[in-house]
């Protein structure tokens, strides 16, 4: 997925105009193209449906400040980030992303088949797309049972998208890559030789795709917007917007997953 392009216009979005319901977006798991492009695409699709706007946010701190203050808004974020939020924030997860008919994704650590096991990666360069801290936490989680200290020895090479990370391994710019299983499958469809040269060295537990969250006492406007978003994939322009986020659609978060998220 392409690298986040931080744009000054989106660093600190202003508070919404009266009557406007905004979807704020921040996720280290989705690395997207230009914020302006994303905003323009979503705003264009949402405009006929009501007084709605889409606003990417560049920094986690700004996003969390909005979470704490905004009432009539929705928040599209990573499920991992949601778990880390202060319990005192009265929020409810409503929708979850869909990709390849699943609401979860598995991350893997991929190396060349010719390489040794995980222990041979000590001090190695691992190609990642997304923030280093996020990748480091993911890697520690993957290696917890085996070599927990190994994650701290890794040198991360940040590249714009997951297909770059996987190809970096093939071409020797990195010893391993962190990528989702769906990215590897996509690579296999277009370049079977490169995909076949890789092996899965470690994997994470399934992680929920990005979720859409609202204040717990959501008003009528917020609920109406949720309905719009859960049907966005039905129209070509809406599906195109979701595809920019690496998703095929959004659906109601099942109760079991809501409970598991702890709210």
């Amino acid at each position, binding site marked *: 997925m392409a690298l986040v392009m931080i744009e000054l216009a989106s660093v600190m979005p202003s508070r919404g105009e009266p009557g406007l319901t905004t979807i704020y977006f921040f996720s280290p798991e989705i690395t997207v*193209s230009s914020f302006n492009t994303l905003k323009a695409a979503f705003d264009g699709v949402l405009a006929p449906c009501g007084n709605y706007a889409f606003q990417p946010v560049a920094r986690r701190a700004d996003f969390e400040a909005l979470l704490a203050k905004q009432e009539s808004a929705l928040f599209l974020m990573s499920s991992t980030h949601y778990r880390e939020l202060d319990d005192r924030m009265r929020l409810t997860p409503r929708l979850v992303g869909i990709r390849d008919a699943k609401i979860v994704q598995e991350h893997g650590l991929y190396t060349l088949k010719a390489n040794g096991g995980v222990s041979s990666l000590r001090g190695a360069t691992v190609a990642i797309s997304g923030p280093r801290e996020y990748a480091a936490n993911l890697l520690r989680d993957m290696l917890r049972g085996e070599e927990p200290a190994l994650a701290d020895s890794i*040198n991360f090479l940040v*590249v714009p998208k997951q297909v*770059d990370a996987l190809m970096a391994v093939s071409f020797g710019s990195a010893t391993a890559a962190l990528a989702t299983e769906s990215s590897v499958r996509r690579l296999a469809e277009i*370049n079977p030789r490169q995909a076949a040269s890789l092996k899965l060295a470690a994997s994470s537990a399934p992680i929920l795709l990005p979720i859409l969250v609202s204040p717990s006492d959501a008003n009528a406007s917020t609920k109406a917007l949720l309905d719009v978003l859960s049907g966005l994939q039905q129209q070509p322009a809406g599906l195109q917007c979701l595809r920019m986020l690496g998703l095929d659609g959004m659906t109601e978060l099942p109760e079991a997953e809501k409970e598991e998220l702890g709210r």
Partner: protein
Amino acid sequence: MITLHLHTGIQIDGTLRRVLAVLFLGLALNARAADRVLVVNSDASVEKYRQAGEAFLETWQGPVVQIDLGDTTLPENRIRSRMKAESPTAIYCIGTRAYLAASSTFKTERIVLSSAINWERLPKSRNLDVIANELPVENQTTLFRYFFPGMKRIGVLCSKRFNSQWVKRAVSEAREAGVEIVFRHVDRPWQTEKQLRRLLPDVDALWIVADPVVLSSADDIEAIFRIAHESRKPVFAYSHALADFGATLVVAPDHATVGRQAAGLLAGDRPGTDKEPVVQHPAGSAVTLNIRLVEEYGLEMNERALDSVNHVIR
């Protein structure tokens, strides 16, 4: 006979001393991770050089000194004196001008070079690592097919003089991504239009590559895009500068990643010997997609690839 007393008290004759000196020198040239880095930028006002330089500085942990050759009016010999005075253990050169200045100043220190066109034609210093200026052909053609899976035949115009070796390699590498490259040679600029009109009916798309004969002037570039547009054939390009001419898809190196790669190289010990440069390709790509042209030409695009686009033109 020259004698050398080591701390062990063993006397060593001159012959053995010369052997030991060569051994120790050889070990020193298998360079260790850099302690103090000098970053020489050919011209930080050039966007790709600026991106590489900034990403390097964000990634590099140790002491660093920067020199921007685009921001100085000092003569070359004063620049070299200034560089020498910094006593770096390693130098990161961004662009050809930076490399030529550094390589004439530092003879044994480790040098990493990036962002240089045709780096192979430059004089090679010892202890040199290079990050090439181009993405591997297989990477580019893999991304072409990622966005347009149905496109199997891609046309290329190139000169024998500048790209005969490249096109042979490209045909072979592109095959790995399921792409057949169909090429026609252009040996004089006036041949471009005729060769292009012969090529376009046989291919799904035109791939513009860096060739000074084919792209000899802005008029030639405009003519290529105009003819391709009239034929409703998408143009794939290697540089974002060509997006404004009407490229449907641009796959270019991500220059920030190049800067990070340079930092990663210098943070580790240099593998190999001083005889041959260690070469990496850029590990990241920057993609620009013109959705308006995709729709205008009625192209079948894999929309799932949209999450891999850096810039969308509508």
